[in-house]
């Protein structure tokens, strides 16, 4: 083991995250989407953090970020707490990711990924859903 002072905050020790702005033009009145891939740290699994609206026009980039995470780690987290809109395209991307890695999904209590989407799609049965206030 190479001697390496363990930093107090593991997140600070991570490599710089890659951030992919999505959507060629900023849509009127809705937050521009952004997808960040955070490699696994000492305590956290590999994480994809999505911000803004996810729809057909940018779900491919979300899928790509999930693929990148699943390629590096057997357990990944999709942090969707800052997502302002999503639909069945997003649910499909999460299904594909859940087939490749153990998936945990973080959602905001008042966010768009509500209990109906998770239950009706069955996604709540193959992924762990964590609801944050």
């Amino acid at each position, binding site marked *: 083991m190479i001697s390496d002072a363990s930093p107090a905050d593991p997140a600070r020790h991570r490599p710089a995250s890659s951030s992919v702005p999505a959507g060629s033009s900023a849509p009127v*009145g809705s937050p521009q989407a952004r997808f960040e891939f955070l490699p696994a740290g000492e305590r956290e699994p590999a994480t994809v953090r999505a911000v803004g609206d996810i729809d057909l026009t940018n779900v491919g980039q979300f899928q790509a970020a999930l693929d990148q995470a699943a390629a590096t780690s057997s357990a990944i987290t999709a942090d969707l707490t800052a997502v302002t*809109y999503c*639909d069945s395209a997003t649910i499909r991307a999460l299904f594909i990711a859940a087939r490749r890695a153990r998936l945990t999904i973080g959602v905001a209590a008042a966010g768009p990924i509500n209990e*109906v989407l998770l239950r009706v799609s*069955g996604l709540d049965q193959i992924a762990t859903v964590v609801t944050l206030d």
Partner: protein
Amino acid sequence: MALAADAEPGPGAAGTFAADAEVGRDLAAVDWAATPLGRPGSWPQSLQTAVDILLSSRFSMWMAWGPELTFFCNAAYRRHTLGRKYPWALGRPASEVWAEIWDDIGPRIDTVLATGKATWDEALLLFLERSGYPEESYHTFSYSPLRDDAGAVVGMLCVVSEDTERVIGERRMATLRDLGSDPSVVRTEAETLEFAGRQLDRNRQDLPFTLTYLFDHDRAIARLAGSTGIAAGHPAAPAMLAAGDPDPVWPVAVLLRGESARDVTAERLAAQRESTLAGFAAALAAAGEISEMLTTAAREIAAAVHASQVTAALWSSGDNPASTGWPRPAPGQGASAAVLGALDVVRHQPAASVVVRPGDQGSSLLAAPLDGTGSSAIAAEFPAGRPVGAEVRDLFSVLTSHLAQVLAKARDYEQARAVALTLQHAILGPTELPHGFAARYTPAVPPLEVGGDWYDVIPLPGQRTGVVAGDCVGRGLPAAAVMGQLRSASQAVLLRAPGPAEALADLDTFASRIPGAECTTVFCAILDPAAGTLTYSCAGHPPPILVTAGADYRLLEAARSLPLAMLPADWRRSQATAVLPPGATLMLYTDGLVERRNQSLDKGIDAEAVTMAEYAQDHPDDVADHVMSAMTPAVGYEDDVAVLIYRHPPAPLTVQVPADDPSSLALLRARLRRWLSAAAIGSREATDIMIAAGEASGNAFEHATAGRPADAAPVQITLTACATHTMVQLTVADTGSWQPPPADREQPAPGTRGHGVIFMHALMNDVTIDPSAHGTTVTMTKDLKP
């Protein structure tokens, strides 16, 4: 013999132990089946007889029987010797009960068992731990053998008398006698000191250390001249004591006055206890609710008595209490079985009683009840080896008694407060408003939650709604009492009256009969959402503000008249009707919102209207928040404030976008989002509608262009939305052709397409998909919660 009947199989336990009701009950409670002796019904006659003799005797006795020397004792032994080990000791191996002196008594018992001959010991020194600390004690006792039915020695009986007081008393008398002996011989000062020191040092048990000081001639200073049992230079043995020292190690000034020095430990403890109690009371007074109070008490008690853990428990129903404590227990980790047992024992005891019990791993427990009903108790745990003396017990008792009193008051207060809040909320009116309404209410006199202002929304026959705002004269409780009556009355009159003018006329009559109700101002209106009209009449109330979707505003100033019960006999109230344009916002309010010292009412109303107009298309809840925060004076409101906002359904939304532009979907969403908040749709329902619309337009986006010739006209997606006060209808139409929707609605395989249509059905109340040669139209409706 009385026991003969009990020798038969059966329960028998109560009979075997019948000679002493109290100890007998505790003996009967022992799980005898778990001991080598088995159930009492199966015991040999010899054992039953021995137990009966033991329990019948007034002499202090204990006995042991069987391979593990299982322990029994009687009431006298319990009282004199066993102390807090009772009733824990019953039925346990004697070597466990008297573990701390087993080295002394074990060999004697072995001798009795081996030889069958009795032992005799007089005033044997034993260090017992019967009060939580090792204690010097002297016992005179005899161990005699007990034989089974076949005559074999299988146990022993100990008859014991305690000599502790006699032995210690004699020892102290001897020291006093020796100190004063041989007075005829004249000695030098040094010889006298040396002689006294020798005598004092002989009794280290009663005098662990002594210090002898001699005063100088001027009596200002005392110098250390002799000591026993204490090292030189010890802080308690200063070489010199000054008579003038305000805080001396030893009270020499008292001795100089010719008084004998007293032990002030008790006084110091009492003073310490007073200050601890004062601090405890202050900490409790700062705690709010009962649960917070218990946690605070646990923390303070733990600090005061140096306990390792303090646990408080509340029983509401059933046997499992809710517990809190200090240090705070880890989540999911409750109190130990020993602590819960102590709490359960003590909770039914009379107030101010304290129970001492052994805890886990050699620890000791003090427990006290917190009320007379058995619903709460508190326990402190002390680590093994920490003596729990009388002063600790007393302090614990004082603190828990105080806590019990404070808790009783807090319970009364919380009950009274709950009654008051329930009544206030009943007076105040609706907490659930129909769709499209938002309200804010701020009473002027805290901690009251009601004042003289009110608002009301009353469902009326024919899909109409009564809308009222009122303001009684004055503030605080008297105004609130009048308000409650007028609010109920206004509900009743609106249900019967043909219009708001007649409703106010009825209220005039009512108000003239209630002291303090005259001169109340009221705005009373009937809203007809289908017709888009508001019919109103005003009794001296500030004019409501009507803001259009385009941010124009006006005041509803027609049909104004005097406040309630102020009308001359020949005046009649009038009414007027205002048309509500689509998306209009109506705000009723009381003058507390706009009235300011040094400012005319008109100016305040203008400022309020301007604020409202800025948020003409926001959700009514947001409008209410903006108005309240924009209008709040720096010093807070001086009067009660009531605000009631209604948003009329907006004009339908129509958006058309080209399907081949990637930004089209985002544009559709942005326009729909804005329209939904203007239509006063709540965030959960708005989210459902957004997703359903997204699925429908996403399908159009994906499929509309499929299989079309390249030179065909670009496909358009058209979204329309319209709202009533009960539902939203949404259509998404395109000019292309769709994939046929799935024939059945079973779950699609995970990860495959097809969730979109299912989501639409799950999120909306009614969905129809109508494909045709010229395009596809999805029509969906969502019912709004009333």
